[in-house]
């Protein structure tokens, strides 16, 4: 997706002008927001569970090395293998090697944001391995050569007519006269096409919502069942997960699962929650014969030691996206990152560097809704501000912004200078506005006046009026 600041503003402008996207964002924003609130209302213990979940994650992160060691041992005991990947490139290489060792020609994939983060599909495809996304939304964006626009609902930005066109273009054996004008027909078509892939796949790759140290298990949550067909049918199952996904016990997983679906879509639980532990056992009639877990670092260990450690508590529910006015206005693609919205604004600069990703933490009004709905109590606006501090320290903001800020700060630290300048400026503005009471044009203020009038000042500063009123004994 491009690097450099201009892309965000341009992409955001396109998104704002895209009427189909705007319509989709309206519906979805309200749907998820209303449903989450309803789910919360039905569970009186919701806020206590958030405290529990935060405590679990904080404890785990402060002992992360030990829980990873335990997890690894347990996976080995169950017949699986753990592979550590310090970087995205390491993870890609490990997974490609495992696929090649398995003689894989076709790989099916469950939904995994981490696999998008590392650019896995392109890497496998370059090695002539066919990769098929099986989550319906991910499958559709794969057909379109796009990124998902939301971490939970990948095609929230598309209407069914667009999806029908995509299927007709990509499904070569689809008869022209087949009806695809309703969601149910589109789903039936996808089921048919993907069923063939599920059955033919050599390797299945999934992410993990959670890893459990106690048992060496990986957990995925889906509504479709695609994750299960991906992990159960092929000979080899590969799990790719970042290291902070780990929790100590099954009880800890239960706490987080109580929050995850409710925060994401307002469901009490997803249809399928699957705990996978190693390859098939002696008397298993089905299941993979090889089970591998690739543990990705890619910046997480660095975050453990810096101001962004709290971000490692994130369970990828997407509630912050759903409640964010900025995400709600521009959708996910404008962020230019695998991770959009408030959580993306904190995570992306860590992954891409603040120079390249500076717009993400800067394009926020700090309304605080994200933090208010986060089930893991992550102080997202504070962390965005910390990124702004780093951005500022590197001299990234445009010269005019830095100059204006310097001038403002200079005056603000010197009340006498400030009051004198302020009086002069507001007098000028009030006169220019005249009886109209507002300014539709003003030098240096085009960013405001492009779309809004600027209310005129009353003409004198409060301090000068107050001083005068006191002198006249009127206050």
């Amino acid at each position, binding site marked *: 997706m491009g690097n450099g600041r201009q892309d965000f503003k341009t992409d955001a402008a396109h998104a704002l002008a895209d009427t189909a996207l705007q319509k989709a964002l309206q519906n979805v924003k309200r749907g998820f927001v209303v449903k989450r609130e309803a789910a919360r209302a039905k569970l009186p213990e919701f806020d206590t569970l958030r405290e529990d979940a935060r405590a679990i994650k904080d404890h785990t992160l402060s002992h992360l*090395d030990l829980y990873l060691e335990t997890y690894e041992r347990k996976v080995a005991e169950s017949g699986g293998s753990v592979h550590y990947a310090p970087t995205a490139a390491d993870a890609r290489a490990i997974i490609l090697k495992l696929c090649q060792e398995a003689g894989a020609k076709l790989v099916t994939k469950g939904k995994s944001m981490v696999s998008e983060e590392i650019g896995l599909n392109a890497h496998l495809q370059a090695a002539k391995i066919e990769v098929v996304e099986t989550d319906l939304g991910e499958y559709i964006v794969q057909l379109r050569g796009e990124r998902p626009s939301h971490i939970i609902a990948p095609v929230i930005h598309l209407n069914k007519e667009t999806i029908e066109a995509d299927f007709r273009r990509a499904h070569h054996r689809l008869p022209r006269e087949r009806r695809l004008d309703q969601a149910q027909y589109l789903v039936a078509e996808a089921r048919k096409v993907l069923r063939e892939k599920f059955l033919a796949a050599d390797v299945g790759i999934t992410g993990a919502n959670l890893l459990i140290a106690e048992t060496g298990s990986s957990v995925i949550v889906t509504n479709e069942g695609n994750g299960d067909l991906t992990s159960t049918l092929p000979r080899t199952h590969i799990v790719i997960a970042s290291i902070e996904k780990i929790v100590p016990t099954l009880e800890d997983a239960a706490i987080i699962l109580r929050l995850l679906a409710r925060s994401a879509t307002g469901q009490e639980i997803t249809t399928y929650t699957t705990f996978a532990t190693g390859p098939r056992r002696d008397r298993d009639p089905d299941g993979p014969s090889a089970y591998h877990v690739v543990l990705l670092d890619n910046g997480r260990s660095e975050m453990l030691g810096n101001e962004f450690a709290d971000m490692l508590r994130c369970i990828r529910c997407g509630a912050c996206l759903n409640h964010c006015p900025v995400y709600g206005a521009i959708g996910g693609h404008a962020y230019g990152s695998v991770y959009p919205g408030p959580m993306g604004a904190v995570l992306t600069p860590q992954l891409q560097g603040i120079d390249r990703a500076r717009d993400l933490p800067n394009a926020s009004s700090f309304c605080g809704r994200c933090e208010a709905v986060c089930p893991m109590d992550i102080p997202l606006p504070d962390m965005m501000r910390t990124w702004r501090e780093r951005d500022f320290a590197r001299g990234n903001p445009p010269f005019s912004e830095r100059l204006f800020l310097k001038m403002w700060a200079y005056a603000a630290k010197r009340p006498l200078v400030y009051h004198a300048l302020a009086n002069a400026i507001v007098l000028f503005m009030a006169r220019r506005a005249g009886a109209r009471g507002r300014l539709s044009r003003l030098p240096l203020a085009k960013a405001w006046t492009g779309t809004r009038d600027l209310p005129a000042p009353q003409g004198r500063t409060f301090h000068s009026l107050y001083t005068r009123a006191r002198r006249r004994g009127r206050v």
Partner: protein
Amino acid sequence: MSAPEETRAAVLDRIRAALGVASLDHARRTAVVRRLERHPRGTIPSRATRRGEERVALLTDMLTKQGADVSRVPTQKEAVGAIASYLGTCNLPPRLRMGADRVLAALPWREAWDIERSFGRAEPGDRASLSRAVVAAAETGTLFLVSGTDNPTTLNFLPEAHTILIAASDIVGSYEEAWDRVRAIYGQGTLPRTVNLISGPSRTADIEQTIVRGAHGPSRLLVLILG
């Protein structure tokens, strides 16, 4: 690419450096071991403390809301009858794939002599399957199914119509109680290859947020509560 041992050490060392801890810190290790042994519980929703018929009613209510068909059958004979009539309701031929589960095998199948039963993992052509859940958590209408020859995992996902039998006495309130049951059967600190927590038929809302059943897994789920 470095050797696995090196990359492993690299990641763990980085973590320890970030946390400012030493690998051989005894107090930390003890804390972790103890927590894993105790596996303490957090907050359990009050709805999970319902008992008896109220608990069964909660399970039924949750599953129904999540799109499953739920039937209470007092006897094994009625269970078989319900299975047969479900196949009819779903417009499916009287063919059923199941595992070697003894409880299921012991059902009075002669009461539905025309059902053709086949055993083992699900095959692509199977349209209906029958499994048994080892335990269910009423709090969200969630059934726990375990892999193995008794109830192969593929039965849960390949066919169009899936029936799950659960004994009323195997219904608990919370996830935590369910895991304790699983531990009692399968051991501590270990799990079978797959534990599926199933709370309804397969669905997707990816297309314009419209809910459609049968995205990849079964489009119909019948839960039979026996006893």
